[in-house]
């Protein structure tokens, strides 16, 4: 059975204008997401994972950003062509986002209840000072907020609604941020490194809750993380990004057992293992985006580079078993 594609990012190119010149940050990213699927985008800081997903919600300020190519199709409509109103209507309703840091994502001067209900009551209209608060809508919002909090298994939701963010622990705040994203039961949920600011045990609890909720509600999710272990636990498919390009794609179960791209290999080797082994890391640093290499962007740091890598950009090619890799070491259809 072929499931329906919910979102597809086709050859997205984003440039940023800066004082020193144009930084070519995103260089042809292809990502697709089926309905009910969970995908992860992994990569180190500066690989463009956040810019890619923030583009889906139109959260990248233009300028300095400039979309020079490609399209983002959500239910076959190009998001990049949306007007401001259309975009605003879609945010929070069809697509919502969980932000990274639960300490800063909540407003400290409003109670949890007010913040949750706001998300529900906002229907795309600006509120003027004379307009009356719709009591029925408020009632609805209140009961929905309680419902979502109960779904998140937060103890005593009615009491939590009256609390301020400072009164809650980090883990609890992260749950509130997730609950807020679920107020409208979106079709697509984008999670930008939730739990990285938390302890492992709390992060673990939150990932379990999130995974369960997404499955129960049939929400598709894009999960961004730099922790490969977390990506393996939560997702069905994984995209590995490096310097604004997707370098490898594959099933979450197999991609880390057998990886092909030298970058993925290096990344996997760098992770401290439980048997006490750990690689030496990857030499060098990410390329300068103002003047990126013409060929493979990993060229300078690659241990297996060939002369062809310097001038020709490798395409993302299909290998066997639904694996894709962008590297000159491999050829189409081979394993």
């Amino acid at each position: 059975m072929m499931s329906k594609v919910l979102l597809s990012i086709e050859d997205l190119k984003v440039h940023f204008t800066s004082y020193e010149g144009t930084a070519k940050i995103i260089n042809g990213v292809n990502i697709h997401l089926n309905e009910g699927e969970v995908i992860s985008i992994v990569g180190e800081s500066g690989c463009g994972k956040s810019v890619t997903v923030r583009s889906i919600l139109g959260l990248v300020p233009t300028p300095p950003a400039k979309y020079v190519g490609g399209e983002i199709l959500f239910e076959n409509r190009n998001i990049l062509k949306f007007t401001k109103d259309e975009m605003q209507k879609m945010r929070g309703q069809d697509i919502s986002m969980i932000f990274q840091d639960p300490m800063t994502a909540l407003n400290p001067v409003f109670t949890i209840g007010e913040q949750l209900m706001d998300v529900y009551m906002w229907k795309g209209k600006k509120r003027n000072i004379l307009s009356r608060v719709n009591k029925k809508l408020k009632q609805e919002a209140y009961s929905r907020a309680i419902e979502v909090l109960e779904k998140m298994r937060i103890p005593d939701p009615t009491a939590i609604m009256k609390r301020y963010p400072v009164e809650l622990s980090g883990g609890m705040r992260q749950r509130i941020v997730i609950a807020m994203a679920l107020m409208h039961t979106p079709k697509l949920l984008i999670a930008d490194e939730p739990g990285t600011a938390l302890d492992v045990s709390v992060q673990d609890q939150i990932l379990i809750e999130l995974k369960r909720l997404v499955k129960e509600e049939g929400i598709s999710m894009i999960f961004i993380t730099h922790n490969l272990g977390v990506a393996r636990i939560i997702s069905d498919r994984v995209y590995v990004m490096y310097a604004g390009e997707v370098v490898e794609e594959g099933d979450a179960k197999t991609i880390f057992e057998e990886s092909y791209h030298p970058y993925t290999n290096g990344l996997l080797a760098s992770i401290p293992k439980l048997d006490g082994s750990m690689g030496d890391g990857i030499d060098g640093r990410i390329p300068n985006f103002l003047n990126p290499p013409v060929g493979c962007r990993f060229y300078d740091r690659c241990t297996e580079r060939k002369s062809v890598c310097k001038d020709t950009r490798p395409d993302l090619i299909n290998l066997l078993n639904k694996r894709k890799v962008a590297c000159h070491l491999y050829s189409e259809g081979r394993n």
Partner: protein
Amino acid sequence: MSNNMLEINGLKKYFPINKGFFKKKVGDVKAVDDISFTLERGTTLAIVGESGSGKTTLAKTIMRFYDPTEGTINFDDRDITNIDQKELKLLRQQMQMVHQDPSTSLNPRKKIRDILEAPLLIHKVGNKQQREARIRELINLVELPEEFLNRNPHSLSGGQKQRIGIARALALNPKLVVLDEPTSALDVSVQAKIITLLRDLQKKLNLTYIFITHDLSLVRNFADQVAVMYLGSVVEYSDVETLYNHPLNPYTQSLLSSIPVVNENESKMLPNKIPLEGEIPSPTKMPEGCKFHTRCPYATEKCKQRPELEITKYGSRVSCHFAEDISEGKVKAGIR
């Protein structure tokens, strides 16, 4: 000269809670609550625990940033529990610290050269030429090019900044270096580089490390001894091998079981999943008896009494009434 760099005995650090107009003392935050251990020269002790468990306070008390409430600290065969400020300044040459976030622990307005020279100036080491020579030696030690000396911190990457942080800590030839989560702000590929560097430096300079972290998979690769902390107490203390092969305290087990691993082989090495409920309690309202009993799946009536750190058959020290029973599967979770 004994074999031990550090001997800690019954160390306590309480912070008073003052309330009301007259700031009357109403209680204590027991940040470090009766901790004892010894640390051999040239080895690494990892202190592991969730945030708020008192890891950093313990390290800072050992370094005498805080005055201990009770207990003794023996550093390099010398009692340093009550020495005065003047002696303390001399002592600080022997113990240095590498901070968590390299972007905030380096002064953005100073050149790298000035940052590295600062400890030498404070402790009045050498003349101008000698200091310059030492700075060059240091930057080579952390494997950075010498032209970096004229740069400002913002032009360096995270990993390079952390290398400068390490170089600064090593400027005065310390014997003990406290590493406060030195890699938590870095990417994994950079983290591996920094850990390799720290290991090489330890061998080369015979350093003793106290390594504070919450990343248990890193501990396996770096430390010799591990102390697992929970709410100011050490709940398990053992060497690395024993901790990973025979974790006995339920808290250690649950911490280990929640490590996100990347492949099937590794997940087999973890203990069975132990779900932890809730979060670490507030240290102002410390639970009676075993501090962990509010979240422990094995907790019974007996846990209302405080367990002692006892030596187990594997040689580790564990504070749990049921440590051995749990490891032999005699006790099941969830019966309260």
